[in-house]
Structures are given as structure tokens and as C-alpha cells.
């Protein structure tokens, strides 16, 4: 394995600045890694080699020339990044992992992509996901499952399984994800990587194909907490093209990660959410969680128990609000202006029938399920009982958070109740699949930020620890997350990801 791909984004950036490696070398090393292991993983739906190398060469030329232009380069300039295929990009197809958008070329860039281009991070390609980001396992992709680099028979989480697997397998040091109910954090947990859902509105959603607009949030995926802090500072900030974008940028994220990395968290009040531990959480997950709490306590944090009694209704509220927004957001896929068009087998060929057959052929089962569920929740006679009630639950969950944050600076829980499950384990049980997001959903309903950091192994598979902070206080996540990362790595003597087994590319090639 080329040494360049083992570096964190921050370490690689320092090497590029020091002239010890070029961006072209770094991009090529990652492209080589993709060529080597992605046949087995299927983390990428599109590889953007030519453009990535061109951007890398441009950064190298600017550095070689020196002067004001070189000085003005972004700290991450030349460090490659992978993009979840829900985020639109000029010059590369964007599919949302759906047949509906097979080969679709966006005529515009998402705001986060414009920022990445301006900072000159070479884009390695587009990563796999559950279709339209609907799922917790990346098994609902129209272009095949992504496999977990830790164990090729396990799921990489979802919906952002491609981004998490790419980063965990050293195909990319950084990636972008989107998190509607845990789609950044749960894949991070089950692949032993770091993922952050920023405060709602902290990162522009312009150009993220909308699933549930009041819940969706773009955020960073990386192997270290510091790398995510750099990436969130890069992609964050106000965007007039997103009417839900916060007016002021969140600052001090990198500084907070650096401060946390000293391991000093004396006086930080950490609240353990009573409702997100115990029953329903695997023994191994609970054990790693308890060990992390002990470490944090020994480092001077004050551990308190908090209760969020309405969290037990969060899953129900989420599976009413999200599908309702889905049914509306996905109405635009009608086979008229873009995307797939499928004609019905028999006449009459009216638009209504063309729409019906187009959507039947273009959408997968889970997408259909959510559209129908949302249509039901919003229909006359049920609206108050379902959608209306769910919106009230949202208020109650916000109040639970408010009360909890009076007692604690950050909250903590396992990120996911189990380690990565086997591919196909929940094929016939959509409800069981939904339970994977039980610990991550409350943050989306309330708009507060959350981070997952690797917390060790159970059954040789990664366990994630989640911190949650009040809205606008993303910096607290980076401080607490970096502190736990440092404390655990000090105890282990290595990072968790360095313990991932070699990827057995032959085994999958044979199966295929």
C-alpha cells in the first residue's frame, strides 16, 4: 500500500505544502487504490480520474511557482475527496443511485462543490448510496451493494455507505456525505471512521438532491476528527441559494478539534442519554460505550445522566415526517424534463400513464414504500393524526434536548445499536432496518449537530460513539470527539482504522 494513502487529510496536506509529495502523486496513489480494491467494495459509482489529475497538476504548478498565489492556496488544496452521488456535480454523472437518474448530467454544481473547486481539492469520483439516500445499508442502490472494508459480507451502513467505505479502505482521505436520519453517522460507526452531521443550515443544501428538506444536511466524512473539522469549515457558511442556510458561519471548529486532541477535557459536562443505552443495544456495543465513558471521566469530564423521555417517539415521528417530505420532493421525477422515461406497454400514451410507468420502472422498492407512506400520512383524514402529531413530537424532542443541555455541554450515546450486520439480513423486514437509526434520528428532528468517532471493536467490527451538541455549537463536538479519539488511541497505541484487515479482493472476484 502506498504510504500516501495511509495519511490523514491534514497530514497529506502538510506533506504537499512541504514539497515532500505532489498532489498528482497523491491523487494517482488513491486512483491506484480504487483500481485495486473497488472491484470488491463497489464504493464508487463513477471515477473522475482525468479531472482529478488535472486539478492536482494545477495545484502542483501553483506551489512550484510560489508567490502570492501559492500562499493563498487553501490548506486542503491538492488533497483528494470523494463525493456522495446525491450531490450534483458538473462534468460527472449524478444518479442518486437510482435508475431514474441513470447517466443524468447536472447542468450546475452544488454550492459545496463550488467551494471544493475553489479550494482546489481534486474530486476522485461519486460514491454509492441507498437510492435517493433511503436506507441504512447501501443495499437499496440500483447499482449494487457496497461492502464493508472490515468484512466483505457485512453492510457498510447507509445511506452513505460508499463514502464511508471509500474513506475506511484508504480509497480517499475525505468524502462528503448527507445525513437525514443518520446517513453520515451510522456508516461512520460501522466502518470505524468519523462523520459529522452539522447544525441544520450550517452547510448549504443547494445541489443536494432533496430527500426530506427539513432534515437533510451535508457533512464531512474522514478518518480523523481534525480532518472533518477542516472539511466542515471549508464547506460551511451562508448561501443565498439555500433559504434555510444560517446567516453566519460557524467558526473555531479546527481550533476546537486541536484543543480536544490535547486530551484535556477537564470540566466538560457530558450527559449520557438514558433512553439511548441498555435494551436494544448489543452487549459489545454497550461495553465499548461504557469504556469510553470511563476514559472521559478519568480525563476530567463530568459524566451526568440525562433523560429524554420523548426520544421513544422519535422513530415514529421521523417515519411520518420524512416520507411526507419524500412524497413531495420526489414528485418532480415524472419523465418530462429529465431522467428516465418509460412508455406504458399499451395505449393510451397519455402523460399520466407515462408518469405511472416511468415511476414504476425508475424507483426501487424502498423509494416506492416511502412515497406511498408519505402520500398516506398527508392524505385527508389522516393528516392531523399522523403528520400533525409527528410535528408536535418534533417540538417535544427539541424540548428534551433543551432540558438535557441545561445539565450537560454535550450528550453521548452509541451511534448505532449494533455493529455492521450481514448483507441481506434485513431484506424482508423494512421495520427492522429502520431501527438502525434510533440513536441518530433525534438530532435531525431537532436540527442539532452530531459526530461519530470510532470507539473500538466488537466481534472484530467497529463500534461508534456519538456526541450531540446544541444547535450552532458544532465546535463542542469537535472538542469532545477529538478528546475521545486521542484518549482511545493513547490507550490502544494505534488508531482503530490501522487495525482493519487487508481487503481480500480475490474472494469477491470469484463469487462474481
Amino acid at each position: 500500500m502506498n504510504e500516501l494513502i495511509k495519511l490523514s487529510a491534514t497530514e497529506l496536506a502538510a506533506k504537499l505544502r512541504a514539497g515532500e509529495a505532489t498532489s498528482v502523486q497523491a491523487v494517482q496513489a488513491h486512483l491506484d487504490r480504487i483500481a485495486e480494491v473497488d472491484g470488491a467494495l463497489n464504493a464508487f459509482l463513477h471515477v473522475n480520474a482525468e479531472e482529478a489529475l488535472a486539478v492536482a497538476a494545477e495545484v502542483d504548478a501553483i506551489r512550484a511557482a510560489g508567490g502570492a498565489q501559492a500562499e493563498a492556496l487553501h490548506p486542503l488544496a491538492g488533497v483528494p475527496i470523494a463525493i456522495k452521488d446525491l450531490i450534483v456535480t458538473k462534468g460527472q454523472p449524478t444518479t442518486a443511485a437510482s435508475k431514474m437518474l441513470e447517466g443524468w448530467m447536472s447542468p450546475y454544481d452544488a454550492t459545496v462543490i463550488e467551494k471544493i473547486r475553489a479550494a482546489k481539492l481534486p474530486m476522485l469520483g461519486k460514491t454509492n448510496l441507498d437510492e435517493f439516500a433511503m436506507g441504512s445499508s447501501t443495499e437499496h442502490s440500483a447499482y449494487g451493494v457496497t461492502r464493508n472494508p472490515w468484512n466483505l459480507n457485512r453492510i457498510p451502513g447507509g445511506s452513505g455507505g460508499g463514502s464511508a467505505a471509500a474513506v475506511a479502505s484508504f480509497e480517499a482521505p475525505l468524502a462528503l456525505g448527507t445525513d437525514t436520519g443518520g446517513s453520515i453517522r451510522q456508516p461512520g460507526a460501522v466502518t470505524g471512521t468519523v462523520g459529522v452531521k452539522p447544525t441544520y443550515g450550517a452547510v448549504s443544501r443547494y445541489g443536494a438532491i432533496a430527500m426530506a428538506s427539513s432534515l437533510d444536511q451535508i457533512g464531512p466524512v474522514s478518518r480523523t476528527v481534525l480532518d472533518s473539522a477542516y472539511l466542515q469549515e471549508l464547506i460551511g457558511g451562508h448561501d443565498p441559494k439555500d433559504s434555510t442556510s444560517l446567516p453566519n458561519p460557524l467558526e473555531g471548529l479546527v481550533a476546537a478539534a486541536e484543543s480536544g486532541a490535547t486530551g484535556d477535557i477537564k470540566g466538560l459536562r457530558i450527559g449520557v442519554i438514558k433512553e439511548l443505552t441498555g435494551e436494544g443495544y448489543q452487549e459489545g456495543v454497550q461495553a465499548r460505550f461504557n469504556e469510553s465513558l470511563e476514559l472521559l471521566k478519568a480525563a476530567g469530564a463530568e459524566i451526568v445522566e440525562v433523560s429524554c423521555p420523548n426520544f421513544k417517539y422519535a422513530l415514529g415521528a421521523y417515519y411520518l415526517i420524512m416520507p411526507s417530505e419524500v412524497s413531495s420532493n420526489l414528485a418532480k421525477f415524472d419523465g418530462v424534463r429529465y431522467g428516465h422515461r418509460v412508455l406504458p406497454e399499451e395505449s393510451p400514451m397519455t402523460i399520466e400513464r407515462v408518469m405511472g410507468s416511468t415511476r414504476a420502472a425508475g424507483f426501487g422498492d424502498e423509494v416506492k414504500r416511502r412515497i406511498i407512506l408519505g402520500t398516506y400520512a398527508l392524505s385527508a383524514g389522516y393528516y392531523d393524526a399522523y403528520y400533525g402529531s409527528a410535528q408536535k413530537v418534533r417540538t417535544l424532542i427539541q424540548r428534551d434536548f433543551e432540558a438535557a443541555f441545561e445539565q450537560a455541554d454535550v450528550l453521548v450515546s452509541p451511534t448505532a445499536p449494533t455493529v455492521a450486520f450481514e448483507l441481506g439480513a434485513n431484506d424482508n423486514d423494512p421495520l427492522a432496518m429502520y431501527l438502525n437509526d434510533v440513536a441518530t434520528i433525534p438530532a435531525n428532528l431537532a436540527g442539532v449537530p452530531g459526530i461519530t468517532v470510532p470507539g473500538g471493536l466488537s466481534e472484530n467490527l467497529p463500534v461508534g460513539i456519538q456526541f450531540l451538541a446544541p444547535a450552532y455549537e458544532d465546535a463542542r463536538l469537535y472538542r469532545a470527539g477529538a478528546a475521545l479519539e486521542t484518549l482511545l488511541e493513547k490507550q490502544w497505541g494505534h488508531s482503530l482504522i490501522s487495525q482493519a484487515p487487508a481487503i481480500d479482493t480475490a474472494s469477491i472476484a470469484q463469487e462474481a
Partner: protein
Amino acid sequence: MSAISREDVVHLAHLAHIEMSDAELDKMTGELDAIVGAIASVSEVAASDVPATSHPIPLTNVLREDTVGQTLSIEEVLLNAPDSDSDRFKVPAILDGE
């Protein structure tokens, strides 16, 4: 008693413009019924004095500068269209004229 009948799903699929086979309708009916059963508990705590939240961080009077922003050329707009004719989207018949 099941909350969602097969007839409901037929109606919902029609509203959502998704054609479904008989087998799909049967499967969807069972699944939706189980899901709705599991999530209906939200109404337990939704008392009349609890205000609804539609947006996690409400912002008001969000306005942008009244200037021309990014626009797309006709070529870009039609690039992904399944069918087009002389700078326009071509749409199947709206009414059944047969």
C-alpha cells in the same frame, strides 16, 4: 384491524403516479400496515397544547439580493430531457384523444 387495506394502497399508488402489479400491491399493503402500526404511537403524546414544529431552526424573512443569478442555456436545460423538439420539452398527450 389493519389500518391500511389493499384498496387504500391502490388509491395511494394512483395518487403518487406509481403503477403497481398485483403482487407489489399485496406486498406493499402488508408492509405499510406493519410500519403504520409501529409509528402510530406519535399520537399518544401529541396533546393539543403542544405547538407543531415544521422546521428545526426557523428563519424568517429570508430574502436574497434582487439581482440576476445563475441561469442555464436552453441547451443545458434540454441536455437531460427524455424528448424535446425545437427548444421545447416534448410531452406525451395530456388527454386521451382516441
